[in-house]
Each structure stands twice: as structure tokens, then as C-alpha cells.
């Protein structure tokens, strides 16, 4: 379902973020800046997979989705809003009924990961073994299984 941009709400990220965030994030190189209008737009709607990466990131909530014309009847919408470490979704049916759902999406603050925290493997001494980094801490069992050990 292709994204579309509400021209009233889009400010092309107004000089912040080194350009529009939708252009930055789109995994399929679809969102582009119309330099004349100074607005974002979807340059190839038929290859939009409705992943909502741009919708979720847009600071102006200017990006929406109009369902694929070949199989989605008009009138419905699904719109997310970022809340603390989660998203609130508003689902509007064609008949006007609405549902709202809030789900968590992350249990830690953004940027807080510590890749090798408390890992005990020796990068030189354990390189030839089968264990992966941190498995002594994170595998969940004492010993890495091998077929001979478990048969």
C-alpha cells in the first residue's frame, strides 16, 4: 500500500536532520524530496511494501498510507504514533469503526546496548573452539551440545 505525504503537514524536516527523515530511512529508496515543492513524495508507489518505516519516523505525522488500489477498498486507515518504547495504532475501518492498540517495542533505552558486556571468552585462546562470543553467559545451558555428547 503506497505511502503518500500530506503537503500541509510536511515541512521537509525544515532543515533539521540533514534532510527529510523519510528519505533517510526508506529501505527501498522510494521516498524522495521534490525540490521544487520542498515536500517528500513516494517516487515508485508500486514497489512500496507498506513497511511504515517512514510513517513511524516522520516528526510531523505527515505520511499516511492509502491501501493498494488493486485490492484494498477505499476509506480505511492504519496510523501509528510513537509512544515511550512502543507504538499506539489507530485502525479505522471503512465503515468508520475505530480500534486502538498500544504495544511495547523495546524494553531498553535506545543506545543503551553494551555489545560484549561481561563476556568471558578469550578472543585468542577460544578462537579455534566452537563457542560463540558470550555463550558461556547467554547459551542457557552449561555446555555447547555436540552430537557425540548428547547421543
Amino acid at each position, binding site marked *: *500500500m503506497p505511502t503518500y505525504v500530506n503537503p500541509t503537514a510536511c515541512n521537509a524536516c525544515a532543515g533539521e536532520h540533514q534532510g527529510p527523515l523519510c528519505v533517510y530511512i*526508506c*529501505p*527501498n*529508496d522510494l521516498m*524522495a524530496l521534490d525540490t521544487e515543492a520542498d515536500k517528500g513524495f513516494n517516487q515508485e*508507489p*508500486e*514497489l*512500496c*511494501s*507498506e*513497511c*511504515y*518505516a517512514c510513517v513511524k519516523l516522520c516528526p510531523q505525522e505527515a505520511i499516511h*498510507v492509502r*491501501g*493498494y*488500489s*488493486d*485490492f*484494498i*477498498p*477505499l476509506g*480505511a486507515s*492504519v496510523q501509528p504514533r510513537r509512544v515511550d518504547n512502543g*507504538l499506539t495504532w489507530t*485502525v*479505522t*475501518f*471503512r*465503515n468508520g469503526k475505530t480500534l486502538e*492498540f498500544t504495544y*511495547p*517495542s*523495546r*524494553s*531498553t533505552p*535506545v*543506545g*543503551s*546496548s*553494551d*555489545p560484549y558486556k561481561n563476556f568471558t571468552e578469550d*578472543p585468542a585462546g577460544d*578462537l579455534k573452539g*566452537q563457542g*560463540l*562470543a*558470550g*555463550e558461556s553467559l*547467554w*547459551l*542457557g*545451558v552449561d555446555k*555447547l*551440545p*555436540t*552430537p557425540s555428547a*548428547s547421543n
Partner: protein
Amino acid sequence: MALPVTETVECDILIIGGGMSGCGAAFESKFWGHDLKVVIAEKAVIERSGATGEGLSAINCYMGQRYGWNTPEDFVQYVVNDMMGLAREDLVYDVGRHVDSSVHLLEEWGLPIWKKEDGAYERIGRWQIPIHGESIKPVTAEPARKAVGQENIYERVSITHLLTDANDPERIAGAVGFGVRENKLYLFQAKAVIITTGGASNVFRPRSVNEGIGRTWYSVFATGSAYGLMIPVGTEMTQMEHRFVPTRFKDGYGPVGMWFQYFHARVTNALGEDYTVTRDDELDKYLPYGRAVPTPTPLRNHQMFLDIRDGKGPMFMRTEEAMQKLAGGDPAKMEQVRQEAWEDFLDMTIAQALTWASQNIEPEVTPSEVNLAEPYIMGSHSGEAGAWVSGPEDLAPPEYFWGYNKMTTIRGLFAAGDGVGAAPHKFSSGSFTEGRLAAKAAVNFLRDHGETPTVNAAQVRQLHESIWAPLETFDQYKGASTSETVNPNYITPSHALVRLQKIMDEYAGGTSAWYTTNGPTLERGIRLIELLREDLKQLGARNRHELLRCWEVVHRTWVGEAHMRHLLHRQETRWPGYYYRADYPNLDDANWRVFVNSRYDAANDKWNLLTRPYINVIT
């Protein structure tokens, strides 16, 4: 030809692709090789790139060893049966024994996993655990980005070709590509390369048309580059004839696993029949796999296919029946089930939620149509196409071992995720794990072979010219027509994609051919795809966005051709429900319980097909 500036990047390990496998490879490589320069090249931005960029509602590969749920041996049994007898047991076991550590790490980094009251993980199925996974990709990307360092991540760079050593065509030397957002060509010189790029959507003509072709089941940005990069340099590939045909909610392609396994919903036809009951006898035609528990995915497809072929559709997932039964008249319980049902889509396939809303479908009231999708060629989910790689030191028999785990037949070239063949059912967590395994092996390779490969400058120049050629072609010929798209001198990438999809659909057993083909049909299709491959030299691109699409369709065409050549070689129907060889309609374990492999010989433009033996390692 006037080319833009070339940026040359020298590194120890080049990771191509920043999806789940690529992030796993980045994380792992810098632990074992903290002194090494590790570089990621990614055509998008790693926080939302790859097949999990939209999010996920479940981890589908988790043993639960700490709970005593499953052993890696159990996993191998399951996978071999689901693949109708064909999977590399050493590779599957390897993912199984390590994958729990990856899942626990993802949870530590911030992935919310559903828990029971006692704190243990909730379960959907034997291998599946539900997650609040909308942000699984940013959660995974963050430690990868920290591990390799911001300065070593080359985003919006599309890799088009691999480079082999000037003096040794079986030794990797790097890769070339171009900047999607700036006029720039790239040369990556690397001592080891890890391919973690994607499987292929949109090789077959999809059921949707026009705008809906972006709503592929597997990610629309999975362009088969894992194969399109490896095949042209002569990497030995395996099981490229295999495909996955997902049974999914119709058109929106919402997931069905939770409905079948967690909500225990049935699918019924227009007569109210359940094909798993009425078509039960059909399973006896495909023994021993037909009576495996659970019934292999292709055979469940096959049962449904027969209903549809016999005119008994539409097929409906009986969501209303399942939800009413689960709620048992309790409104609070119904609200909980409703929340879970919608999250399943909103976490990972938002289009399905919109599909329901647009048709006023409330799942507790109205059943929802399901269908068999177009085929997909991939190696991480339920498909097993990919490179023929070495197994791990302690598991692989000599026939499956050549020095380094996950190394392809090109020395120094490793693969993970969709790129590894005969090792399916990895999903997100297993692909991340396989990236880690490949990375550790690559560090081992570098410790043993620290030499810098030699790059042939003339070859790089030639490849750079070919990368840029579609832009030049358009500029040169655009004046020959008043239309930018109808011109006798070039075709657009969109034209090429549609031609590929038409060939695959009609000749290789797509949906319009009822997944059916035969030898002469495949031979005809291969001839047409050879002509398409010639025409790809006349692609025209108006801008860099279209140049990206040009190289995507080149990669997809390699996948399509490999798929047809492998289909032609395997003279049996091993996976009914995925495809049917009308001239060899039966499963033939006596002759064909072997891996079908191929190597493309670029010097002679010749494909060499061969088989490799099935060796029991676990079963």
C-alpha cells in the same frame, strides 16, 4: 565512458548486507578480531533494512534448551522432514545448538519477549516464541553499529559484483558497487567477504498487479543479491530449484503461524470441509515424509492446492470460530485474544491490518480468505536455496568440509542467512546466528591467511563501466523517441522485471501455470531467459534510483535462470505444493535424495549441474 569518482575502501572483512545475518556477522567479527577492520556495505540503512525491517511478531527458531524444550537433534529431525528429506544436517544442527544464545542476547539488548507468569518465555509452537517485535531490527542493528564503528558502515551503497583475485579465480578479493544517493563508484578490497544479502521476491509474477506488486510476502527489497553476487564468480550453489510457496492471508500476506499454532484455527473450503481431513490419504503418496509429524509444509500446501484446483474455494481461515472458542464467552478473554490477533499483523505485516479494516473484517465475527502465494526463492525461512558451504569442524563429514565453517567454494568468501543453501528454517534468530558463525570462521581464516589479495585494475574499470552503463545508455539514446520508456535502444528496469516474471510464471511453474512445468517447458523458458540476459546489457536508467533497480533485476535474473536450470536437473517432484514436474510426478528417494548443485563458468558462459550425496550426520 566518463565515470564518477571511485572511493576505494581497504578492509579485512567486508560484510555485504546489514540485515539480521549481517548484523550478527558484524557483532561477532569484532569480538574475535577486535584489531581487524570490518566494513558493512548496505544499500539502505541498517536500522530498517532487510527482511525484518518492518518488524516481526515471533522468533521462529528457538530451541529452549534451558527449559528442556528441544535439543538440536530434535530440530534437525523436524527440518529434514519439513524439507521432504533434504537438508544439510551439519548446518542445521549448527544453527540449532547456538541459536538460543542469540535470542537471549537480543532480549538483553531490548527485544521484548512475551513471558508466562513464572517468567519463562511464552510459546506459540514447538520452535516459536511470540515477541513484541516491531523494533527487532533497530534493536539488532544497534550493537552491530557500535561493534564495527560508524565510520565503517557504508550505507546507501549497492554492491553489484564480487571480485576474485587477479591470479586466482577461486580466491575472493573484494566487491564493487555504487552510491545510491551520490555519484560515486566503490571498490572494496577485502581479505574475506561475508555475503549476508537477501533471497528473492518478485522473481515470479505476483498475484497482485499494479500498486500491489510491492506487497510481496518476502521483503520486496530482497532482490536475490545473495545469489546474483555469488553465481557469476563461479560459486557452487545448491538446491536452487527449491522454492517456498507461502499459504498466507489473501493479498495482504499476513502471517498464519499464530492462527494455526496458537489460536488453533482451521481452514475450510466452500463446502465447509477441512482439507487436512478430507485429503489425508494424499499423504501416503509421499512416504515417509507424508506421515511425519507435523505434516511437512509443502504437503499441507498440496492438500489445499487440490481443493482449489477442484473448484472448492475460496478457502477461509476460521478466525471467528477459533476466537469464540478461545474466549469461551468471557469478554475480557476475547479482548486479550483480539489484542494478540491485531498485534500479529501490526508488528510485521501492517498491510494485512489495513486489508481487514478496508473490508470491515472483524476476525471474531468474519472468517478471512487465505491463498497460496507466488513462489519465492530463498534460504533463511522455509526455502533452502543458496551456496554450498563448508560445515563446522566437529560435525561435517569430509565431503562437507573444506577448512572453515560457512565458507563457500570460493576461498575467503563466506555466506550466512539467505546465502547458505540446504540450511533452512533459520528465520531471523538463526540468520543472525549464522552470521555470527560465518564471522568467527572468517576471523579464523584471516589468522591463517592474512595475505592481501590482488585486484585486477582493468577488471575493476570494466565492471565500473558496466555498473554505470544504464545511465550512459539512456543519455545516448533518449533522443531517438518522444517517449522516455518506448525506445528501440533500451529497456527500463521495470520492463526487464516484468519480462522476467512472465517467463518464470509461465515456464517455471508460477501461479498461472498452477505451479506445474516439465522438461521441454523449462528448456523453452531457459532460452527466453538467455535472451533476457542479453537484453540486460541494454538497460537504460534515467537516474541513480533506476540504476539501483537495474542491478536488482540483474540479480533477480540470475536467480531465475539458476532456478530453472536446477528444476530441469532434478527429475522428480519432491515438493508437491511448491511445484510439480508433470513429466516426473513422483517423489523418487532412491535416485534423488541428493543435493542438486551448480557452478556457472563465466569464461564459457556455461552452467555445470551436478549432484552431491546426502550424508546422515544426526538422523
